[in-house]
């Protein structure tokens, strides 16, 4: 079994790139891999607490909690979050916040990465 780091830099609300990332994380974890998820840029939306569960918008809080309970680590880019007005108290409980060097270090310690940029 290996270590996988997923960096999610994109996703507009309304797109499913964040959904893709979390489903990939789940599938990897279910196969026994260690999984780390870094969100940066618009991806930090995932770390925002208090999102309403409309059927028109991705609502990933529950699956993130389940994955965190199984050991998946979630970290949001602190600067990207602050720039969006998401402060410490706005941060969804499964997320830690670090600076970008955390992502690079996790990449270094992983067997494989998938960096999702785009947009």
């Amino acid at each position: 079994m290996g270590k996988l780091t997923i960096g999610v830099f994109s996703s507009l609300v309304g797109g499913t790139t964040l959904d893709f990332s979390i489903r990939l994380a789940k599938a990897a974890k279910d196969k026994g891999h260690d999984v780390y998820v870094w969100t940066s840029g618009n991806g930090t939306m995932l770390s925002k607490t208090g999102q309403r569960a409309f059927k028109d918008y991705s609502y990933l809080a529950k699956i993130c909690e389940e994955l965190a309970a199984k050991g998946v680590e979630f970290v949001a880019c602190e600067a990207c979050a602050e720039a969006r007005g998401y402060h410490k108290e706005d941060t969804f409980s499964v997320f830690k916040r670090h600076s970008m060097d955390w992502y690079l270090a996790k990449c270094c310690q992983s067997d494989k990465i998938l960096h999702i940029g785009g947009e």
Partner: protein
Amino acid sequence: MARKLKQLYLVQRPPIKSENPKLAYTHAMASQTAEIYLEDGEEVIPTLAMVGDGVYNVVNNQQLMKHYGLNSNENHVQMALLIDLKVLVCKEDLEARGISADRLADGSALGADMTIEVVPFSEIQKEMEATDQILCF
């Protein structure tokens, strides 16, 4: 599994539409401080490569501060040069857009020794093969 990790940051899209090209620079620069999370013997060695419309990120004289009060990606690439990161730009893609070498960002005013290297795509292909990880922006 201590290792020196080579990462290639491949910037394919123009500046400003999305913040992702900028995040290529800021993340690559974070290699300087990653040691607080790394074990002994581990190191991250980033290279930046601009291809396609990504070459627009390193055009000089970007007046984004004047007009929008914002740092431009020219500023970011200057900082990357200042901390001695390798910055490649695809020769064919510059030529296709009519951008001459004297129109490229220059870090020397900030005291950078490094300059942007204009290289054929074949060199960037070699980097893609030699690097451990590729991050596309």
